[in-house]
């Protein structure tokens, strides 16, 4: 059991880091929800904006991926 406290800290840290992915989920949900509410009001303009939708999702998702990366680093690299 000696020295396991570092291991424990790693796992707790990795678990805490994954909380950040929830923020990305909120961001992506907000973007898609707003896109849908706009698209249903003016469906004819929606088709041209799907590229913008995916760019927005990609940017919002990036920070969730960063927290995922921190978790991976704690689990396997540190």
């Amino acid at each position, binding site marked *: *059991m000696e020295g396991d406290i570092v291991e424990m800290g790693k796992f707790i840290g990795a678990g805490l880091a994954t909380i950040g992915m929830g923020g990305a989920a909120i961001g992506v949900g907000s973007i898609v929800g707003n896109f849908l509410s706009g698209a249903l009001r003016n469906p004819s303009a929606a088709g041209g904006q799907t*590229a913008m939708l*995916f*760019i927005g*999702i*990609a940017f919002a*998702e*990036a920070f969730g*991926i*960063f927290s*995922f*990366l921190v978790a991976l680093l704690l689990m*396997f690299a540190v």
Partner: protein
Amino acid sequence: MSADVETAGPQFHPMEQFTVEPLFGGHAINWYTPTNVTLWMGFAVLAIILLLVIGTRRRAIIPNRTQSVAELAYGFVYSMVEDVAGKDGLKYFPYIMTLFIFIVFSNFLGLIPMSFSTTSHIAVTVIMALAVFISVTAIGFYKHGIGFLGLFWVSSAPLALRPVLAVIEVISYFVRPVSHSIRLAGNVMAGHAVIEVFAVFVGMSLFIAPLALVGIVGMFAMDVLVAFIQAYVFTILTCVYLKDALHPAH
């Protein structure tokens, strides 16, 4: 006490599928060693050649099935570059098409059970992202000279805010290759790891197995979607960065 817990519980090794191994035995990996990454990248290139070179060789007016798929892919990327990067971005279309087709084929080949997904490695995606980053920066400086730095100077903001915004813009510019590469690798890796975890649940007990099997099917369906969407996102972000380089003024 921890030993008997480990023997009793299921063995989780969800990251083992991503190990790079030499194809012909041994453990030493040098830059010239053919590994499973080399093999599956070779398969991707082979599949691309089959579709885009052999498939369109006849150049029929009325295309057969393979040729229509190739034309569809070409038209899809072409209109994406034209829409996002503008008409003068079309000069760089071959490069963007190469990126898109390679990522799509690597992602989908990685979905075959027991295969190896090359794009799950950050080392692979970071090369592509860095190539995009360096070439886009070079294009920006080549086209606009020192005026390319206007990208960081937001002229529509109040004067007092501009230095602060410039710092933020510079940081976000240099974070681009990081997020660009890790988004692709992280999504592919996470999808495959989750499937592996669910697979362990299936072997665990008879009561959980049906539920976990449904979970695998659902996750696999999402992975098919993610494989395409992440290739699309990678390509469209390349187009956005290219547009920034071609028209840096805010």
